[in-house]
Structure formats: structure tokens, C-alpha cells
């Protein structure tokens, strides 16, 4: 998974300074040195790193930080905040023109992945936004580029506008817009040939297309594995075309993805999508904030285990296992368990620490709602001791009382009780399985989300 290497390095660095009760300037220097190396190794642009480290240093040696009770953690907080800043905020949406069609131009260096991304984007627009896009083959230079787009169009069963390799890309783009209007295509995606940002002639061609078709979006497609030059390329394309966003491709590789951090910092243009594979449905909206937090605190099994060990009491775990075996597990135990898990940190952070959790079936796109957990807690706490030990006695009037006491409604109380019964059944099955020992702890629980 991309970014993993960077995340590991940073975690390792944080670990060293985390528990320190006293942080000296030398400590800060040592840490910033390591952070610097981690970023450079991840291909974050040299100048971006330099500025970043300068800011962190200034803030880290600040009196308030140094004098705090947990200076180590404060320093880490500074790094985290700065890094999150660097990556940018929330996900940005794709433009919609007031009067269709919305026109999108795809630009970038050779081999970045423009054509494939054109297909993926069209697929995304149809699937997620119910649109009817027209693909435009304006790469007349690379051998068989038009064939490539036409093949993708076929696979997607979508129209592709092309005029062969003899027509000029400007004419192709112009005619494509007219064609889209006639055929009620509400999006037009123009695939342009890859070119070097220093190739004046070819950059002029893009400027001409831009003037002619007045695109609503110009997406710069960038290979996530790009090194230090990513910044020069992005800056140059942006200066010449004023791009509206970036698509980062090949993020399914094992790159540390420094380009992602540098480009945003230098051009201030948002990364809107990420390519996650060669298939046409492997394009995902990019969430900078989530990516930042993954780099910073997650995808980290070690600290997950560490947290579990810290929060889960050994003896308690054993008792629990017994309870699971003889099915004497009560709602009180459930509440305890939930508390322990929650002490370990926000739940989606925990999920984020499990590498690949985002890819697991069922866990994918889980939005952990902390509020809902609060509700569950409130409901259980509104029960009497007797009710918690033997939920079977909870009849209609008791349910009403519990609902009132917790400020929830009866159907929520019902749902919780059902979940609990299901869970108990599951535990029984699990512990009865021959040779399979109950693991105890929180391992076997199905959490109510």
C-alpha cells in the first residue's frame, strides 16, 4: 500500500520522543532530522521539506510546548498538524457546468496514465453521478492512443469521439463539444497526448484547446511514483494552464507517495482522485485528511497491539473467556468490553491501524459513528442490574422506561437487545467449535456498528 513506508518511518520517529517528560532542543533537532529524512526518502520535494522542517522547529521549541506536561506528545502534535496542513483538507468535488456539457481536459507527462484515467473517470461519472459522458481522443501522437481509448469506450459501452491522427487536437476538441451537445452528453472528457512541460510547442497546443473549449476542469494526471521533479512538472503545467485539480495514479503500488504532499504544497491545487489499479472501476475520490491521518497514526499494527495490551486486563480477559464459554456473558460485560476498546482510541482510527482493513470486505467504507456507541452505552446504563444480567426479563414496559431514561427510542432498544442475543449465539458457536479456543479479549466481538 502506498504511503506505508512513510507512515512506518514517522511512527518510529514519534515513538522515540513520545513519552519524554522533558524535551530539549537537541531532542527536537534529532526528531526533525529524522522526519526530514523520512520525508525525503518518500520523495517529498526538497524545498517543501525544508520549509516544513523550519515551521515544525519554530513551533516545537516554543515555550508552551516545552513547558507542557507532555512535551513529547506536544511536539508530535505539531508535526501532525503541519503535515495535515500540507496535504490539504477535505475531499474536493468535481465541477458541474451551469449549462451542459461539463468539459474536462486531461493533461500530463507521457506515461502518467491519462487515457486509462479518462476511462475510469467516465465510468465514475456514470456510476456515481448518473452522467452520460463523451470520451474524446485528442492524442494524435502516440501510436495507437486512439485505439486505446476506443477500446476503453467499447468496454464501457460509451461513445468515443475521434477523427483519426490527421486532424489537429484543437479541431478535434472543438468538434467534440458540438457533438456532445447534439447527442446530449452532459460531460466531455478530452484525453490529450502526454507531453513534457518544457515542450513549448505542445504546451501551446494545450493552451489553444483550453481557450477554445473553456474547460470546467483541467486535471493534471501525475504518477504517484514521481520523484523530486513532480513539483517542477506540476508548477509548470499549473502556470501555463491553471489546472483545477490533480489525479494521482498508480497509488496501488508501494510508493511512499511524496508527490502527493509536494504538489499540494506547491500548486495549492487539490488532489481530486486517486487511481488504485488498472481496472476501470479503480478510481477513488481522494480524501487528503484521511490520507494524512493514515500516514500519521495508522496502518500501525504494533501500536494497536500495544494499545490492546494497555487497556485489556489479562485476568479480566480470562474471566471473559469463561463467560463466553458458558454463555453467562451479560450486558454489563458487554459495556466493559466496549469501554476497553474505546479507551484505545477512536474506532475508525483503530480500523485504520489494521493494514488492509480498508480493503476488507465489510470493513470497506465503514463509517464508525461514535455517537451511536454513546447511544448504546446510554441504553445499557438505563437498565437495572437485574435487566443487564438477564435481558430476557425486559418486556414492553421496561423497554419504554429504558428508552425514556436513555433518551433513545424503543426501536433502538430493541435493536440493541437483538444484537446482543445474536452475539451470544455467535459466541456459543465459536466456543463450541472443537479445537478452536475462544481468544478472549475483544478479539471475538462483533461491535455494534
Amino acid at each position, binding site marked *: 500500500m502506498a504511503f506505508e513506508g512513510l507512515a512506518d518511518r514517522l511512527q518510529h520517529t514519534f515513538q522515540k520522543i513520545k513519552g519524554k517528560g522533558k524535551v530539549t532542543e537537541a531532542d527536537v533537532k534529532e526528531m526533525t532530522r529524522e522526519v526530514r*529524512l523520512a520525508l*525525503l*526518502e*518518500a*520523495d517529498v520535494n*526538497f524545498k517543501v521539506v525544508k520549509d516544513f522542517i523550519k515551521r515544525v522547529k519554530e513551533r516545537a521549541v516554543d515555550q508552551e510546548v516545552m513547558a507542557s506536561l507532555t512535551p513529547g506528545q506536544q511536539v508530535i502534535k505539531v508535526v501532525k498538524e503541519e503535515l495535515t496542513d500540507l496535504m490539504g483538507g477535505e475531499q474536493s468535488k468535481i465541477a458541474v457546468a451551469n449549462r451542459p456539457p461539463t468539459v474536462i481536459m486531461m493533461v500530463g*507527462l*507521457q*506515461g*502518467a*496514465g491519462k*487515457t486509462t484515467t479518462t476511462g475510469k473517470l467516465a465510468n465514475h461519472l456514470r456510476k456515481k453521478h448518473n452522467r452520460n459522458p463523451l470520451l474524446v481522443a485528442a492524442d494524435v*501522437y*502516440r*501510436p*495507437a*492512443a*486512439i*485505439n*486505446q*481509448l*476506443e*477500446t*476503453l469506450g467499447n*468496454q464501457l459501452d460509451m461513445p468515443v469521439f475521434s477523427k483519426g491522427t490527421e486532424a489537429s487536437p484543437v479541431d478535434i476538441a472543438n468538434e467534440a463539444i458540438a457533438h456532445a451537445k447534439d447527442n446530449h452528453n452532459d460531460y466531455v472528457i478530452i484525453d490529450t497526448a502526454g507531453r*513534457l*512541460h*518544457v515542450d513549448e510547442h505542445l504546451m501551446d497546443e494545450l493552451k489553444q484547446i483550453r481557450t477554445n473549449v473553456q474547460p470546467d476542469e483541467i486535471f493534471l494526471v501525475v*504518477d504517484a*511514483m*514521481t*520523484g*523530486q*521533479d*513532480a513539483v*517542477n*512538472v506540476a508548477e509548470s503545467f499549473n502556470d501555463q494552464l491553471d489546472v483545477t485539480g490533480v489525479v494521482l495514479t*498508480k497509488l*496501488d*503500488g*508501494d*510508493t*511512499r507517495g*511524496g*508527490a502527493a504532499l509536494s504538489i499540494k504544497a506547491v500548486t495549492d491545487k487539490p488532489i481530486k482522485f486517486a487511481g488504485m489499479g*488498472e481496472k476501470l472501476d479503480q478510481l477513488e475520490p481522494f480524501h487528503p485528511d484521511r490520507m494524512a491521518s493514515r500516514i500519521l497514526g495508522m496502518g500501525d499494527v504494533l501500536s494497536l497491539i500495544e494499545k490492546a495490551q494497555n487497556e485489556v486486563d489479562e485476568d479480566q480477559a480470562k474471566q471473559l473467556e469463561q463467560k463466553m464459554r458458558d454463555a453467562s456473558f451479560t450486558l454489563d460485560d458487554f459495556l466493559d468490553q466496549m469501554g476497553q476498546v474505546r479507551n484505545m482510541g477512536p474506532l475508525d482510527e483503530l480500523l485504520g491501524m489494521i493494514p488492509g482493513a480498508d480493503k476488507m470486505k465489510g470493513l470497506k467504507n465503514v463509517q464508525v459513528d461514535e455517537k451511536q456507541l454513546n447511544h448504546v452505552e446510554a441504553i445499557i446504563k438505563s437498565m437495572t442490574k437485574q435487566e443487564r444480567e438477564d435481558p430476557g426479563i425486559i418486556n414492553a414496559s421496561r423497554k419504554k422506561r429504558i428508552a425514556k431514561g436513555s433518551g433513545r427510542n424503543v426501536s433502538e432498544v430493541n435493536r440493541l437487545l437483538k444484537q446482543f442475543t445474536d452475539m451470544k449465539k455467535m459466541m456459543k458457536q465459536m466456543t463450541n467449535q472443537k479445537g478452536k479456543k475462544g481468544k478472549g479479549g475483544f478479539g471475538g466481538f462483533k461491535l455494534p456498528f
Partner: protein
Amino acid sequence: MSFLKKLKEKITKKEEKEQVMTVETNDEVSDAEVEQDQAKERESIADKFISGLSKTRDSFAEKLNDLVAQYRTVDEDFFEELEEILITADVGVNTVMELIDELKMEVKRRNIKDSSEMKEVISEKLVEIYYGDDTEEMEELQLAEEGLSVILIVGVNGVGKTTTIGKLAKRLKDQGKNVVLAAGDTFRAGAIDQLEVWGERVNASVIKHSEGSDPAAVIYDAIQSAKSKGADVLLCDTAGRLQNKVNLMNELAKVKRIIEREVPGAPHETLLVLDATTGQNALSQAKTFSQSTDVSGIVLTKLDGTAKGGIVMAIRNEMDIPVKFVGLGEKVTDLQSFDAHAFVYGLFANMLEETEQ
């Protein structure tokens, strides 16, 4: 930035000398003239980078020497700037740190104060990293003395594999060889058509199956066909694949096994194509592709951009794979043999343009 500025000045002077329309380099040139010169100089530095790759060792050594001579004392600033230049060229933190450490040690050992002595040391060390224990010779393609030679081309998506095959085919044909191309990328849309266009351009036959078929089967057929045609060289295209996709890497290993089985001693070359704009991930590419296909050489493409491909230094520092060719454009003739000295010079030359902007 003094180290760089001086380096720039020095190179500027050289440029001026080399230009036909030389403006007298006296102290009284007008601002306009200076500006003009700078524009020209910018151009010529860019030109230089391209032609620089075919430049002789002497001119590289000369320039690097000049460069260092401009910096008077060898101090922390000097090293910091050197570090910056190298990292900006994608040489990679580890290799740069190692290099700087070694240079510092040399400085101590030889008691160097005056930077003029550094010129030797830097050029020595850089070239040493590149060559390691190898002899300083340009690496040629290894071909069979007799019969069919098979060259397998591998790499991640979009680095320039297919284009490189077109260029290589041209080069080999110009040497009087009979070349056949195998359309082993059966996955990417339009990949087969793309190779066929190259086949037409260079007048080489292309052996293909339909899209989606088994690449190993295509390669098998291509070998049989090349044999029966009495071809000299078979160039095998493969689909781009990210090195962390285990099943795709296994597929590649299978293709290689077919080649080994069908032609004794083959593949004579397995060339890993690397995009010069790639950062540190190229190291991971080199390692993983080597594991599955035993890479024998690197082709560094897209050096006509502003990227410096310094990652090659890191790869050489850790692995024993020589760079055999560089790609300098999209035309069929834009492929050159690799010259380490010119390349090392290029690492510095490009940095100049950048700081100027």
C-alpha cells in the same frame, strides 16, 4: 547558494566561449546583453544536457573540476549545497548521505582545506559509486554469437517499454540485424496496435495474439516464428505491472521460463525500463523485477524532460545492474548508449537551470 552561483558563472563562461556569437566577456556588458546572454545560456544548458550525454569524459571532468574550484573553502555550507543538489536529482537520501560522509572522510584524510582539491574527490567518488568494481566501460547489448538472441523488456506501467522496443529495433536493424517483435502485452487496451505501429515504422514483423490471451503463449509462438524466419533478434514486449503485484510478477517469471526453455542461453538481455522522473520507488522496482526476471540492464527513459534520473546512482550503489541505454525523446532515433560521466555531469547541470528560475 554561492556554491551553485559560482558553478553557474563558471559554466556560463564556458558556454559563451563555445558559442559562435560570443559576446565579449568584459566587465562592461549592458543589462540587456546580460539578459540576452542568460536566455541563450539557459537554452544552451538545456541543449548541453542532451548533447552532454554523449560528451566525452574529459569535458565532464573538466566541468566538474571548474565547478568545485569556484568554491573556496570546504565547509558545512559547501556540503549542504552538494547534498541539496544530489537529493534534488533523486539520488536518494541514503546514497547521498553515504557519499557526503565519504567525502568528509576524504577531506579529513587528505587534510583538504582548499576546495580546489575537492574536484578530484567528488568526481572520483561519483564515478566510483556508479562503476563500483566494474571496469569503466560502456555496456553494450549482449547478443548471441550465433542464432537467435532474445531480449525481454520489463517495467512498471507507462515507463516507455513499447517505445524503447521500437527504438531498439531500429538500432538493431541499422546494424543489419533481422528483428522480430513479440506483442507480449495482451492486457492494456491498444497495446498490440501500438507495437504494430512501431513494427511498421521500423519494418519489423510483429507476432501477436488477440487482446486478453496468455502472454506466455504469444512469446512461445514468437520464438518459433523468429526461429523459422532465421531472425537475429527477438524483442519481447510485456505489459506494464507494478512490482508489488505478486501474481503479475509470477506471470512475468513464467514468460521468462518459456524463453529459457525454448532458446538455450536466452534471454540474452532482460532490460528493465525505468522512467527518469521516478523517485525512490525505482529502487524497489529494480529489486523486485530482478528477483523475478534477473534483470541484466536498465534503460533510463524520458531524460529529455527536466528530471535527472539520479535514482540510477542509488540503484548502482546497491545493485549491480548497468544502465545500457537512455531515452531522450519519442522519436525512433531518440535512444543513446549510456555514458556515466556525462550522466554524472548532468546531475549538476540541470540543477543550475532550476535555481535560476
